[in-house]
C-alpha cells in the first residue's frame, strides 16, 4: 500500500483540503512514511478478534421523546460567517 500523487489529490478532494500541486509529492512522501510505520500492525494476528466497539461496556442509552431544545435561532446563528433572514448563507449550490 503506497500513496502516489494522484491518491493524495483524491484524498485531499474527499477531505476538502486544497493541496497545492507543488506540495503533493512531499505530502505523498510524508504520508507514506506514516503508513509504512503503521503497516507494522499487519504482523498482528487478529483472526477471530472482534473490533473494539466501545471501552465503556454499557449499551446505548436512550432518551425520552420530548422537545427540550431549539427555538433559539439567535444562538444557532450567533457565530455564522454569513446570514440573512435567519438563514445561513453559502455560495450558490448547483445540483
Amino acid at each position, binding site marked *: 500500500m503506497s500513496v502516489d500523487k494522484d491518491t493524495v489529490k483524491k484524498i*485531499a478532494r474527499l*477531505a476538502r*483540503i486544497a493541496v497545492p500541486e507543488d506540495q503533493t509529492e512531499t505530502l505523498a512522501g510524508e504520508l507514506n*512514511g506514516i503508513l509504512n510505520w*503503521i503497516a507494522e500492525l499487519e504482523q498482528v494476528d*487478529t483472526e477471530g478478534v472482534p473490533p473494539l466497539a466501545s471501552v465503556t461496556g454499557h449499551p446505548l442509552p436512550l432518551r425520552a421523546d420530548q422537545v427540550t431544545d431549539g427555538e433559539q435561532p439567535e444562538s444557532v446563528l*450567533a457565530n455564522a460567517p454569513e446570514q440573512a433572514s435567519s438563514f*445561513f448563507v453559502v455560495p450558490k449550490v*448547483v445540483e
Partner: protein
Amino acid sequence: MSDLLKLTAVEARAGLDSRAFSSVELTQAYLDAVTATRPLNQFVTETADKALEMAAASDARLAKAEAGLLEGLPLGIKDLFCTKAVQTTACSAILKGFVPEYESHVTDQLWQAGGVLMGKLNCDEFAMGSSNETSVFGPPVNPWSKDGGPALTAGGSSGGSAAAVASRAVLLATGTDTGGSIRQPAAFCGVVGMKPTYGRCSRWGIVAFASSLDQAGTFSRTVADSALMLQAMAGHDPRDSTSANLPLPDCQAAVTAGVKGLKIGIPEEYVMDGMDPAIMALWEQGQKWLVEAGAELVPVSLPHTRYALPCYYIIAPAEASSNLARYDGVCYGLRVEAESLDEMYAATRSAGFGEEVRRRILIGTYALSAGYYDAYYLKAQKVRQLIARDFETAFASVDAILTPATPSAAFALGSKQQDPITMYLNDVFTVPASLAGLPGISVPAGLSEAGLPLGLQVLANKFAEDRVYQVAGALEAAAGFTLAPPRAAGEVQ
C-alpha cells in the same frame, strides 16, 4: 512569590474556609502571576474581569457557608472546553473568534463547585500534538526552561495547562488526554496530571479530536489536589452517550490510604531500546519506594504494547478526519470566500487548519476510504481489542501498574518538528492505556541530569481511580517533589 501562590488547592480551600484570606485576594495574586508569566505564552484568552467577578461571588457564598468543593479557587481551562461567552478556539485559526453559546459539562461542573475562571489555556491545535507547537498561537514555554538555555516544550497537547499550573499562574487546570495529552505535559512540567477512565467525565462541550479516546482530566501540583478537582468535574451526563453512570470512588481518601498489600504490575514491554537512563533509574526508584511502602511488585506482560502507537495513529486520525468535517465555514468559524461551495470548503479548511491537523485529516481520510477500511481502521480496532485484553489479563493479578510517563524529559522547542513519527513516539508509554480507556496519572518524581522534571505513570483498571490515587499518593510522599520551576511566577523577571 506571593505566599498565596505557594498553597496547594487543599490548603487554599482551608484558608478560604477559615477566612484567612478571600477568594478575591487569592484570585488577584494569581492574576498578577498570570501577568508575570505572560512571556511563557500559556494563556490564549485571559478573563481577569470575569475572574474577579466570580471570586467575589465565591466570597459571598463562603460568607454564607455555601461553599462548593472548589470554591474560590483560580482555575485555568484548556482552550478545547467550550466556555459560554468566552472565546473558544481549540488553538486553531479555523475557530478564531468563535464564542460558544454554551458551557461544556465539565466546566459547568467546575463553576458549580465554585471554581474561578482565569482564562483559556494554550494547547496543540485540536489537541493534535505532543509539544504544543501546532497551536496557532505559538507554543507555551516550559517554566523549567533555564535562563540563557533553549526554550523547552511544555509538552502537548495540554501544554498550556501543565505550564500554567507549574508556573503558579493557576492553581488547577483542566486538560484533555487522547493519547497522553495530560500525562506527558504534566511529566514535562513537573506537575500531577490525571486522565480518568474513558467515560468518567462528560465530553459534552469539549471540542472533539478522537471521540473514542478523548477524556478530560486534571492538572494540579499535588495528588490530593487532583483528587479534589476530579471529584468536582466527574459525573454522569445524559448528554454524552458514552458517559458512564457509575459513582466515583472516594479518591480523596485514597490519596493517603497507602499501598500496603497492593500488587503493582511492572510491564516487561515498557523497557525500550534507547531509553534515557535517568528514566530507567527513576522507574526502578519508584518500584523501590512502593515496596518500601508495603506493596508487592509483580512482573506483568502486555504483549501488544509495541503495536499501540501505530494502532493509535490509525484510530485517532480516522475519527478526527470525521470530527473535523464540521469546520467548513458554513455555520461558524473561519470562512474563506470563494465562487462555489466546494471551493469555499477547500479554501476555508486549507487556510484554517495547520499542517499537522491537515496531515492527520488526510491520513484518517485515507484509512477510512474505500478499499482501505478493513486494512487500517478495522484492523486497528481489532488490535485495540487485543491491547485492552492485555490489560484485562494483567489486572486480573495486579491492582495497579507502574511505568515511566515519558521516554525523555522536556525537549527543546523546534527540535522534533521535522519528522512527525519522532514526535509521535513521545506517547509510547501513555497511548496503550488510552486505547484501553484506563485511568492513568503522571506524578513528578525526580529530575533528569539536566535538572528537568521526570514523571512516573500509574495505571489502574477501568473506573478504579481510587487505586490510581492510592499509588500516586504513595509515590508523591516518597519522592517529596515540591520544587517550583525556575520560571514560576515570582521567579520570572
